[in-house]
């Protein structure tokens, strides 16, 4: 298994003047792809936004989109990773990079699971059908596409899934 390479850390800028104010914040981390990791991913994004004075209400949609994307990796790309009682050491890696500034947040999620054609599925129609049939699943992709301003999925040559999400903050 190829270990996902680390992204180059983003530059951290400060305002010129008497009082230095952080303008951007970035972090990259790799977790084992288990459902227990979801809370930590949410915490990092919220904490980074807070450090820039961005409140939870403004970042909530982005956090939800990332949650849905990472949950999909764990439950589908790594189909056996979410098995209750599964050994942690058998879980596969999930790499998340977050870069937040006052105007936007950009997140890159990488895994080495099965490829997923993010564009192929008519997400809103699937979510609508799931709702009508009272289904447990089928809502995540529609939420991701609705909650972010830009998304890009790439299957890299070395077998990694890269999902980049960008949200412009009001």
């Amino acid at each position, binding site marked *: 298994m190829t270990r996902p390479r680390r992204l180059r850390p983003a530059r951290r800028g400060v305002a010129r003047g008497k009082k230095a104010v952080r303008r951007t914040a970035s972090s990259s981390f790799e977790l084992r792809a288990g459902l227990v990791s979801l809370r930590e991913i949410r915490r990092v994004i919220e904490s980074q936004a807070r450090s820039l004075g961005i409140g939870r209400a403004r970042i909530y949609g982005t956090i939800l989109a990332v949650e849905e994307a990472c949950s999909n990796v764990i439950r589908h790309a790594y189909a056996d990773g979410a098995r209750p009682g599964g050994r942690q050491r058998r879980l596969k890696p999930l790499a998340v990079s977050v870069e937040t500034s006052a105007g936007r947040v950009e997140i890159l999620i990488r895994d080495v699971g099965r490829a997923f054609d993010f564009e192929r599925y008519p997400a809103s129609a699937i979510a609508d059908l799931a709702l009508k049939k009272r289904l*447990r699943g089928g809502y995540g992709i529609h939420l991701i596409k609705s909650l972010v301003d830009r998304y890009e999925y790439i299957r890299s040559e070395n077998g990694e899934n890269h999902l980049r999400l960008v949200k412009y903050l009001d």
Partner: protein
Amino acid sequence: MDFKVKAAPAEWDPSITTVSPQGSIDALTASYFEKELLALAAKGRRKILVDCAQVDFISSAGIGVLMVVFGEVEKDGFLKVMNLSDEVHESFDLLGVPEVMAIYKNEKEARKALA
């Protein structure tokens, strides 16, 4: 996992069970939440009002649980929701949940509608 679910008959109508989850309903906690709700339904508590006042996050897994239990009880009971935060309400709106499931702003509104 700091996630809890409390359930008790509504003071204003004991035939209705108010279910109060506390914490985040994500892909990890959703299965526990579903078990608790389905256990209530199996015991005949099929009029369920989910109070989300102490829920800070609901992912699609949580919404999926609500839809499954909604489908389970809709023939002879109901599942309705109240006290969603604005952020959580927005995600429900994006999926069209309010078109099939009643969502009340607060208990006063729920009580008025269900009386």
